C-alpha cells in the first residue's frame, strides 16, 4: 500500500484535520477498553457527510483497504479494532439529530449521535419522550448500540434495541447509498415494514455489510414516575418462573438481575431489580405490593435499599463502567449471552465457576428482553490493564464462557472474533452458506471489517 498516496486522497475527502496516520492516533485506535490485544491500524478518519463516507468507501474498494466503522468504540470485544489493518472510520462527527417526531415517536439521527446527546436533547426539548439507551457511558452512539443488538432501558417492555430500528441509510461497499425501512418509499421514517426487511442484515454484522450513516430509532413515552423494587432470592432455580410471572403481571418497565460475591453481604443472593413506572404515587404503591407478593410466593423477599443505591440504579444511563474500577485496574469485559429464561440458573453456575477458576470475583447479572422472550445474561471479568497476564486470564475466561454459553443453548452477544468462530462452528451450515453468499454479494472485495463473521 502506498501510504502517502492513500493519505493524500483521504485528506482530499475530509481535509487534513480529520484524517490521521500519526503514531498517537493509531495507538489509541489500535485498541479498545476490553481485553483484546491491540491490532495495527493504518488510518483514522472522521467524515462529516454521507458523501464523504461514499468517497472513502469507493477509495477503499478501489485500493482494497479494509474499513472499520466505529461508533463509541465501547463494545469491549474488539469489534472496531481492525483485524487486517485498514481505515478506522470514526463516525462521531456525523452527529446531527435530524428530526424528532413526537407524534410518531421516532428520532431520525446521524450515526455519530451519542446516547448522552439524544438523552439530553429529549430531556430538554421533549421531556415526555425517552430513548432506548444501554447501561453504557453516554459516549456510546445510539446507532452503534442498536446495530449490535444492544439492550438496556426499555428492553424488557419493548425488546432489544436492534428491534427498535425503523429505518437505515447505509453506504454499501459499492459506494452507493441505500435506504431501508419506510424511508425507502416515504418521507416518514416511521416503520420497518411492510416490505421485505433487510435491516436485520446490518444488525450484529459488525460493520461487515456496510456503513450506516443515518437511522430512525423508536422513542417511547416517559411515564411521570419511576421507581425500583428490589427483591432478594437465595435459590436461583425459582428465577425463571418468578421473572415470567412478573412479566405476565405487566408491572415492570425493566428487570435486571445482579449476582456478586463482593461485598460479602451480596454473596449467595440474586438481586432482582424491577423498574416500575406510573402516573401517580398510588400506581407505584400498587405495583410494589404486587411485586412483594410475587417475591414472597417465590420464596424470595422484598428488600428495602438505601436511597444512594436507588439513585445509582435510577440514573440514566447507569454507571455500569464502574466495573472497570472494581480492582482499580482499568479494565473489564463480559460475555453477554442471549439465553432463554430457563437457562438463568445454569448461567449463574457457569459464571460463578469460571470466575472462581480464573481467580476473578464473580460479577454476573442479566437484563430481561421483550417481556420474558429472552435475557441478556452477562458474566463480567475485571482485569488489570497494566498486567498482560491478567488480561490474558480475562480473555481465557471470556472464551471459556462463550463456549459454555453455546453448549447450553445460549448465543454470545457482540462476540469477539474468536467467539464468532465458536458461534459459527455450531451454526446451521445452510445459515453459514447464506451468510457467506450475502457477504460476497455485497462486499466482493472483503473490505468491510474483515475477519468478523468470516465463514471458513
Amino acid at each position: 500500500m502506498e501510504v502517502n498516496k492513500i493519505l493524500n486522497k483521504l485528506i482530499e475527502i475530509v481535509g487534513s484535520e480529520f484524517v490521521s496516520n500519526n503514531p498517537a492516533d493509531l495507538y489509541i485506535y489500535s485498541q479498545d477498553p476490553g481485553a483484546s490485544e491491540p491490532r495495527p491500524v493504518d488510518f483514522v478518519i472522521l467524515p462529516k457527510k454521507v458523501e464523504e463516507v461514499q468517497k472513502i468507501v469507493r477509495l477503499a474498494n478501489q485500493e482494497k483497504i479494509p474499513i472499520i466503522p466505529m461508533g463509541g468504540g465501547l463494545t469491549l470485544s474488539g469489534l472496531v479494532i481492525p483485524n487486517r489493518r485498514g481505515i478506522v472510520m470514526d463516525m462521531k462527527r456525523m452527529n446531527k439529530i435530524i428530526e424528532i417526531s413526537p407524534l410518531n415517536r421516532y428520532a431520525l439521527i446521524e450515526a455519530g449521535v451519542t446516547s448522552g446527546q439524544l438523552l439530553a436533547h429529549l430531556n430538554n426539548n421533549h421531556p415526555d419522550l425517552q430513548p432506548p439507551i444501554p447501561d453504557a457511558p453516554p459516549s456510546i452512539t445510539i446507532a452503534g448500540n442498536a446495530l449490535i443488538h444492544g439492550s438496556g432501558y426499555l428492553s424488557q417492555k419493548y425488546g432489544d434495541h436492534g428491534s427498535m430500528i425503523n429505518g437505515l441509510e447505509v453506504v454499501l461497499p459499492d459506494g452507493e447509498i441505500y435506504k431501508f425501512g419506510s424511508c425507502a418509499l416515504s418521507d416518514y421514517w416511521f416503520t420497518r415494514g411492510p416490505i421485505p426487511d433487510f435491516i436485520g442484515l446490518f444488525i450484529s454484522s459488525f460493520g461487515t455489510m456496510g456503513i450506516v450513516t443515518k437511522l430512525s430509532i423508536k422513542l417511547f413515552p416517559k411515564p411521570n414516575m419511576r421507581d425500583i423494587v428490589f427483591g432478594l432470592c437465595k435459590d436461583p432455580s425459582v428465577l425463571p418462573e418468578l421473572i415470567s410471572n412478573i412479566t405476565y403481571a405487566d408491572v415492570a418497565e425493566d428487570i435486571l438481575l445482579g449476582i456478586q460475591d463482593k461485598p460479602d453481604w451480596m454473596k449467595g443472593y440474586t438481586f432482582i431489580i424491577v423498574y416500575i413506572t406510573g402516573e401517580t404515587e398510588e400506581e407505584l404503591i400498587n405495583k410494589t405490593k404486587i411485586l412483594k407478593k410475587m417475591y414472597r410466593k417465590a420464596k424470595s423477599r422484598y428488600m428495602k435499599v438505601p436511597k444512594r443505591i436507588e439513585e445509582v440504579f435510577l440514573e440514566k444511563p447507569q454507571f455500569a463502567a464502574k466495573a472497570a474500577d472494581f480492582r482499580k485496574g482499568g479494565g473489564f469485559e463480559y460475555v453477554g449471552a442471549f439465553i432463554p429464561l430457563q437457562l438463568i440458573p445454569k448461567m449463574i453456575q457457569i459464571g460463578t465457576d469460571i470466575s472462581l477458576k480464573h481467580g476473578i470475583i464473580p460479577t454476573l447479572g442479566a437484563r430481561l428482553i421483550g417481556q420474558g422472550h429472552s435475557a441478556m445474561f452477562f458474566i463480567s471479568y475485571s482485569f488489570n490493564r497494566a498486567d498482560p497476564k491478567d488480561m490474558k486470564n480475562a480473555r481465557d475466561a471470556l472464551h471459556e464462557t462463550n463456549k459454555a454459553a453455546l453448549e447450553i443453548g445460549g448465543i454470545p452477544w457482540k462476540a469477539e472474533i474468536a467467539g464468532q468462530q465458536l458461534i459459527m462452528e455450531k451454526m446451521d451450515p445452510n445459515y453459514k452458506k447464506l451468510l457467506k453468499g450475502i457477504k460476497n454479494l455485497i462486499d466482493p472485495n472483503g473490505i468491510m471489517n474483515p475477519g468478523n463473521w468470516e465463514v471458513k
Partner: protein
Amino acid sequence: MGGEIIISANLEKDWKDIVHRCFRCGYCKFTHDYSDFNCPSYKKYRFETYSTGGRLWLIYGLISGELDWNKDVANVLYACSTCGNCSENCRFDKFNDLLVDIIEAAREEAVKNGYCPENQKALVERIKNTEMYNPYGEKNSNNEALKEEYDLPDEAEWVYYIGCTSNYRQKELRDATLRFLKKANINFTLIDEHCCCSPIIRTGQTECVKDFINYNMMKIRETGASKVITSCAGCYRTMKSDWIKHDDSTDIEIFHTVELINDLLNEGKLNFKTEFNQKITYHDPCHLGRHMKMYEIPRDILNRIPGVELIEMERNRGNAWCCGAGGGVKIGYPEWSVEIAKERLEEAKKTDTALISSACPFCRTNLNDANQEFEMGFEILDIIEIIDNLDYEITNSN
C-alpha cells in the same frame, strides 16, 4: 488476583502506577447533563486521542514502552487547557482528582525527553531571563514605583502579589485592587515579585520552579507579612496548591481578592453607596472554580452589589466552559485559544447581558481578545473593577 487494590496510598507520587485505571469510558468529555462536549480539546480535534482518556492511554503507552516519545504524542499532551472538566466528570473516585496532575506530570516527562513545543519553551526562557522574570517578556517591574505611588511600607501584615498578567497586561485590574486595598485600610505592601510559575508548571517546565518559589517566599517573609492576597486566579491556585508541594512552610496564608471582599461584606464593613445597574453574567475561571472549588463567593459578591442582576450562563460552576487561556494553550495554540473564548462569549450572548465579569486577569485577557477579534460587543470586567466603579465605604477593616 480478584479484589486486590493495586493503587498505592501515595497517589501523587505514584501516578505512573495508577494511570492505567482510566477505562476510557468518556464521561470526562461531557457537560453534567451530556448535552454537549465540555472538553475544549476533544470538541476541537474529535479524535479519541484528544479526550482525557486518550491522553491517559497515551501516557500509559509511554510508561509501558508500547509507544515512543515523538512530536505527535507531545502535541496531544499539550493541546489541553488543563481546565479540569475531565476531573469534574470522571466517575472514578480518588483518581478523577489527579487527572490534571497526571497530564502536567506527563508534560514534565515531555520536557525531559526534549519534546516541549517551541512556543511553550518561550515561557520558561522569558521567566528565567534576569531582565524579565515574567512570561510576557516585559522588563521586570520591582514594584517600587507602585509602592511609592500608593505610599506602601516595606513591612506589612499583607503582601499584595500582583501576578504577571495583572502587572504587565491588565493594569486596570491591578490598579483597582490597589485602590481597594488602600481604601479598606489593609496594612499591605508589594514585593519585587517574580513569576509565580503557573505557566511553566502547567506546561511541565518545572526545572526552575523551586528557585522561583524560594525567591518569592523569601521576599514575602522579608516584609514580615503573614498573609498574601492576589487578584489572579492562576497565582492563587499556584500559590495555594502548587507552592506547598515545593515549600513545606505553612506560615503564610493565601487569599484571593474576592475572599477579602466577601469577608468585609459579611462583617458589614463594606457598604456600597452607589448602584451598578447592569445585568451581569459571571465566568468561572478554571483556576478558581474547578481547581479550587470557589464558585459561590464571586457570585455572593456580585449579588450584593446594588443594581446588579446576575444571570447565569447555561454552563456554570463545575460545568463552566473554559476561556481557553490556560495550560499553555494561549501561547501554544493562539488561534484555537480565542476560538474557545468565542464559544464562551456566544454562550454569554444567550443571557442577554452586555457585561461579563470574572475573577482572573488571564480569563479577562482571553475573553477580551475574542471579544475584539469577533466583534462580540461585550464589556469584560473583573469583579474588583466593578467595585472600583462604585462609591463605597469601608469601615474598621482591621
